[in-house]
């Protein structure tokens, strides 16, 4: 809504960033230019150096227009069904993300319900949920692949989704624990005066009271699922997806492929968060929340 209002500041900041970026491109890539010149025994002029830093094929830092043109080449100029299209690869990552996200929501909500409804659950699960997030998932990734392989999962989608879910269940769980326990004493006592059973308390009070918390956690959670999907692709087995492309780009000395995949990932993550935010707004309104 306020987009028009803030368009100018955003553009200014982007312009400033571009200037810094171009400056850094020249500075960082010129080392290589000078090295090459020294190997060739020539002495390049400053303008030659500048123009060279803008078009290296293995730059330390590619110039913005290089990234944009690579993005253009691999999205618009490629058929969506082509493996070389970032859209195609993005959809693979997206699929993993959504499975992981769904699984994460399910796990997060279930754990939260156990934690809120049972004292033993709360005391024993909550600390371990926190500890689970301090374990470097990348170290577990291969084991997840192999174990899910051993358990008969045919595709890599399963282990990747598990990794994504591992990262995304936590924000949901934390928020839902807060949300499900957000009803105050009075709201709980009201139901007690009706002689309501625990079942009714859960569905008529705790669940609706937790909805704002639930929605608030979705954006964080989908971002986490996305990171999980990329990490999964990057570390389990570089077969397909944006994470795999980053890896292959890095492994085969094609930094432009890596940079393009990186930016595509950021754009995709941005879109995901935006979409989830939109869905959240719609649901919130449907539930009678204040239009904020």
């Amino acid at each position: 809504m306020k987009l028009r209002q803030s368009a100018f500041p955003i553009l200014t900041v982007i312009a400033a960033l571009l200037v810094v970026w171009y400056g850094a491109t020249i500075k960082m890539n010129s080392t290589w230019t000078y090295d090459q010149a020294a190997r060739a025994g020539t002495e390049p002029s400053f303008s030659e150096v500048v123009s060279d830093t803008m078009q290296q094929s293995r730059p330390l830092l590619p110039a913005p227009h290089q990234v944009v043109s690579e993005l253009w080449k691999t999205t618009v100029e490629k058929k969506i069904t082509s493996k070389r299209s970032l859209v195609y690869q993005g959809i693979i990552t997206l699929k993993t993300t959504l499975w992981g996200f769904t699984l994460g929501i399910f796990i997060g909500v279930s754990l939260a319900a156990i934690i809120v409804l049972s004292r033993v659950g709360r005391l024993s699960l909550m600390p371990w949920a926190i500890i689970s997030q301090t374990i470097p998932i990348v170290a577990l990734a291969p084991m997840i692949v192999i174990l899910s392989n051993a358990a008969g999962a045919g595709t890599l989608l399963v282990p990747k989704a598990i990794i994504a879910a591992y990262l995304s269940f936590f924000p949901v769980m934390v928020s839902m624990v807060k949300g499900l326990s957000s009803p105050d004493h009075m709201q709980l006592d009201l139901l007690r005066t009706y002689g309501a059973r625990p079942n009714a308390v859960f569905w008529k009070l705790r669940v609706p009271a937790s909805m704002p918390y639930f929605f608030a956690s979705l954006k964080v959670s989908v971002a986490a699922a996305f990171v999980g999907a990329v990490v999964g692709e990057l570390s389990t087995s570089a077969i397909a997806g944006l994470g795999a492309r980053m890896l292959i780009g890095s492994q085969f000395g094609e930094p432009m492929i890596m940079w393009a995949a990186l930016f595509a990932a950021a754009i995709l993550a941005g879109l995901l968060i935006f979409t989830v935010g939109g869905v959240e707004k719609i649901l919130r309104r449907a539930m009678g929340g204040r239009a904020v």
Partner: protein
Amino acid sequence: MTDLTTSEAERPAMQKPVIDVSGVDLTFQTNDGPIHALKDVNLEINKGDFVSFIGPSGCGKTTLLRCIAGLETPTGGTLTVNGLSPNEARKARSYGYVFQAAGLYPWRTIGGNVKLPLEIMGFSKEEQIRRVRKVLELVDLEGFEKKYPWQLSGGMQQRASIARALAFDADILLMDEPFGALDEIVRDHLNEQVLKLWARTEKTIAFVTHSIPEAVYLSTKIVVMSPRPGRITDIIESPLPKERPLDIRDSAEFIEIAHRVRDGLRAGHEG
């Protein structure tokens, strides 16, 4: 008064008190040590009584109401409601409780909020709709059924919460400062409404307030309480007739009772 429970059986059934509080003690254990919230509270409330509780902040008014509703368990003494324990009475759905704040569920419309107890108690769909309409009319909230709580003013919210407590026709109404945040004019209006309802339905009402005129205007019995430890210092039976126009408040009788209440209150503050 302590042998009241034994003598009870001998009385004719009609006069048996609806709420019988006898020797009730309640101590909260807190980090800072125990708080003696209620001490040796004795009180009988008969069917159709309108009892007001008045007393300084922290004297145990809310706590006593909660004990009656079975939301708090006394640490001593006995408390029966229609001969049952408060918990049993609660499970038998005897109470309509209006809390100190409106406490509407923000995710439900006004209609939905009023319907909540009906859903839980398993009324039929048509009955739910019928009753919601009826009680919303009673508190002058026709047409606001579809609105959400935050779209209403504070006073309207409080009226909705009263409607919610009335919806399922509980025998006993427990109202904890229901008009706390309202201005005098709205308050007067609601006082009249409550009196009307009470006169028509013969409900038993326990009512907490900070306002002396309100207590005197509404009640058949005024219970004055005093803090540290929370206890009853005076029980005043009102001689006012059941029919009470607003200007009864300028009558000599009224002013006299009000004086007695104020004195009781002041004594509590000093004590």
